[in-house]
């Protein structure tokens, strides 16, 4: 066997960490609850690459409930939701909690002849979940579902559940932000969060500070219309008030992103989107 102490300790650290993480990942269940929203965050998750959705489902978590992907339907699907409540699980919520008409603006299932509203499902799972992630701007802040005059009286998950949650905003959320946050939970525990409960690793960067067009801003070279390769500030860019790592991470495995596509940032990951971020484009 290996007698070198350094080699042994090397083994010890790396292997054990991996083992530890794998053990954990095999255990934990995950409920991905879609509420009042566009169900676009689960689509964004499907866009993930390295790890992709297949790796995420086989090696990281055990996705017990998700309206868009699960094979089961009807009561049998909802039963899987209920069964998972008695286990240790992570709850991911996308979409806002719609509270109008006792939640009847958003019904997620019918069980034993009774409607299960999004509100009830969020409450049921929210009380028992080990961790809760509010994914997407609707879940994190109300977002577009709560846009004035908020016909469905939608509220954010944190306003509804009143317990510690992790906000992962973005419209939609970037797949790396959600998979990265879950990986952190699984392997290294709760990630460092900022004042708005967002993981610092993804949301500490101000878009304007890291924007490749920043030198144009500083030199006052402004685009007068969309499609120009200059700073979008005069068209209403919300980069200066939005914190995400879009300028360096970019989207969909391309080097493109909204500002790279010659359009202003509309602050989709910021609290107050969309009402306080409008007008999106102003000439």
């Amino acid at each position, binding site marked *: 066997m290996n007698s070198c102490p350094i080699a042994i300790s090397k083994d010890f650290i790396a292997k054990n960490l991996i083992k530890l993480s794998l053990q954990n990942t095999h255990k934990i269940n995950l409920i991905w609850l879609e509420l009042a929203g566009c169900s676009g965050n689960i689509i964004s998750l499907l866009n993930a690459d390295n790890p992709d959705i297949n790796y995420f489902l086989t090696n990281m978590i055990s996705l017990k409930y998700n309206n868009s992907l699960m094979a089961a339907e009807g009561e049998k699907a909802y039963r899987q939701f209920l069964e998972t409540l008695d286990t240790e699980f992570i709850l991911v919520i996308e979409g806002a909690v719609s509270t109008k008409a006792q939640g009847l603006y958003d019904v997620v299932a019918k069980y034993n002849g009774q409607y299960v509203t999004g509100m009830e499902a969020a409450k049921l799972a929210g009380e028992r979940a080990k961790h809760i992630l509010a994914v997407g701007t609707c879940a994190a802040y109300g977002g577009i579902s709560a846009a004035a005059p908020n016909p469905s009286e939608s509220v954010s998950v944190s306003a509804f559940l009143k317990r510690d949650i992790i906000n992962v905003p973005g419209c939609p959320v970037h797949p790396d932000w959600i998979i990265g946050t879950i990986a952190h939970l699984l392997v290294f525990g709760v990630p460092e969060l900022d004042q708005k409960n967002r993981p610092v690793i993804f949301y500490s960067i101000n878009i304007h500070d890291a924007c490749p067009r920043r030198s144009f801003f500083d030199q006052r070279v402004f685009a*007068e219309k969309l499609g120009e390769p200059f700073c979008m*500030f005069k068209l209403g860019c919300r980069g*200066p*008030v939005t914190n995400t790592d879009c300028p360096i991470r970019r989207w969909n495995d391309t080097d493109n992103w909204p500002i790279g596509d010659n359009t*202003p940032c509309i602050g989709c990951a910021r609290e107050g989107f969309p*009402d306080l971020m409008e007008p999106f484009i*102003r000439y």
Partner: protein
Amino acid sequence: MNIHNNNFSCQLSHITYRLSYYTKVFFSTPNPWEKMYYVNLISNELFWLNSLTQQLWEYFTEPNNTIEEKQFTLTELAKYTGANGTPAYAAVNGIVYDVSLEETWGGGSHFGLIAGKDLTNQFKSCHQAEAILNNLPVVGVLI
């Protein structure tokens, strides 16, 4: 030339930059011809600097340019919404501020507010400290 114009301070900083560079080379080169050449360049820059200070002086003595004189009515203020290349002005407590280049005011709009208005009430309902206004260029008063 407009003294508020960014161009002005840009020119000024370019001149000072060049001055310090030429002086540095002047002292570091042993070649007398080169020294003469740089003295010449420096005096050129001084000429430009002089003309800029002249402008500052003119601005200062010109009565129309003093802050109290630039007066806005609400209708006049309403022209400065930041749309279509106009500057973005907003009034708080009777003073008109230029928010054209304020980073949180992209496109002349700020958290649902649009420039070109008296936003005193909105300001008070959102910002406690008036200190943030101190960093904004003042362009006049509201009458």
